């Protein structure tokens, strides 16, 4: 799968990397058990510090999207994806709050908000096939 990192974006590189990998899993571009480049290789190919890639991989590992083995290296979790846990719900609500707050500040209507959410949700689910 191609991973594109926008270098002028305000979003930190490790977050972009994390987002792209999760999106790749959703769309099926990255299959369960599929290997990812090692930290060193990924950092070298992207031309970024190894800490950056390490950070992204560690978050993904903590959440259960990938596994990091000593021998096999980095793979997409072959035992399936993490589920919606109460812990995740807490994080989810916390993360979506400022997004809704900004939309409200700008005067976005509830139905518009729902429509946009629905659009993105459907778009990603379609890719999943």
């Amino acid at each position, binding site marked *: *799968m*191609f*991973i594109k990192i926008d*270098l002028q974006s305000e979003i930190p590189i490790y977050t972009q990397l994390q987002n792209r990998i999760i999106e790749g899993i959703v769309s099926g571009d990255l299959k369960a058990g599929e290997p990812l480049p090692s930290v060193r290789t990924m*950092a*070298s190919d992207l*031309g*970024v510090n190894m800490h950056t890639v390490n950070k992204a991989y560690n978050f993904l590992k903590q959440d259960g999207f990938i596994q990091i083995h000593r021998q096999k290296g980095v793979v997409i979790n072959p035992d399936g994806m993490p589920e919606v846990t109460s812990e995740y719900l807490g994080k989810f609500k916390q993360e979506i709050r400022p997004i809704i707050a900004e939309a409200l500040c700008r005067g976005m209507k509830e139905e518009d908000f729902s429509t946009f959410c629905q659009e993105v949700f459907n778009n990603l689910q379609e890719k999943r096939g």
Partner: protein
Amino acid sequence: MNSIIAMGVMYSSFLMVGMVLAFMPYLTRKTESFGVTIPEDIYHSDGLKNMRKKYSVQALIILILLSIGSAVLSYKAITPERASLIFGIGLTLLIACLFGLYLKYHFTMKRLKEDNQWEAEKPQAVVIDTSFRNHKLAYSNLWFLLPALIMLGTLAITVIYFDQIPPRIALQYDLSGEVTRWADKSYGALMWIPVQQLFMIVLFVLINSIISRAKQQINAANPEKSLIQNQIFRLRWSAYIVVTAISMVILFGSIQMSFIFNVHPKVTLLISGLLTGMLIIYAIILSVSTGQGGSRVKVSEGKATEEIDRDDDKYWKLGQFYFNPNDPTIFIEKRFGIGWTINFASVKGWLILAGIIAIVIASQFIYKI
């Protein structure tokens, strides 16, 4: 007569090296111009076309003057050693002059870029393929078993026919085929060539491994196309390395055979001339048909995007030396050249470079006879 043939071989390689350097602006990636990052469409602008043309014409003039000058001096030289010394000086001078010419264009290009702000509106991105290294990027190192077998064969024949070998063996010939260095027959002296062969094989295995490991460099403006081009580029040069390893080991093997069997030095000279000539021509054909990073390989168009490659000019000192402490990359494509260079900020890079130089020097001196 022989020395004229030898000089012909030397100076035709001189010309070929010079020609590749003179036409280098046409062989680089199209996202670079004289060591400066540019958007690809700018590469095709009239201004840059003129610059490339001017550079090539000037480089060719330098090449012609220097090759005529040093060929005449070599020809008039009193001894063959003096002739090859003049050749060496001429070649060094050629590379130095063309680097100077490059620098002039590099700085002009830098100023041009500053004035024009080509990259201002275009988003810079870096694109990688997560499965890049699952593709076949180089031929297996097992191919080097072939030259290794030839080396063992050389060794075996030497041992079997040891009694037939004359008591004095010719170690070095000058360009006219006269022996300039003799050695008394001994196992030690006869091990020199197999040791050379071994060093060469190690070196080529190292280079082949570098080819598959070097940094992935996909053009963000057209990732799909660039990915295939890059793969082809690596595979073709890996094949070249395998062929070179086999040829060089055969060449050295044939020299060893000339110690054992009564081969005329002219035959050995002919074999070495033909093999090296073939390797040089092969390298030129590859450079022209493939281009740096595979930029000249014709593949289907792929999808063009809005993004352009990251501008990392500040890490390219003089446009040619990569120094980026934040990048763990060791090997990266050359900017103004064909092949790879090291990240000079990487300690490992320096160590590997030192290792390669050590192998080359050791192969010459470890075995003094």
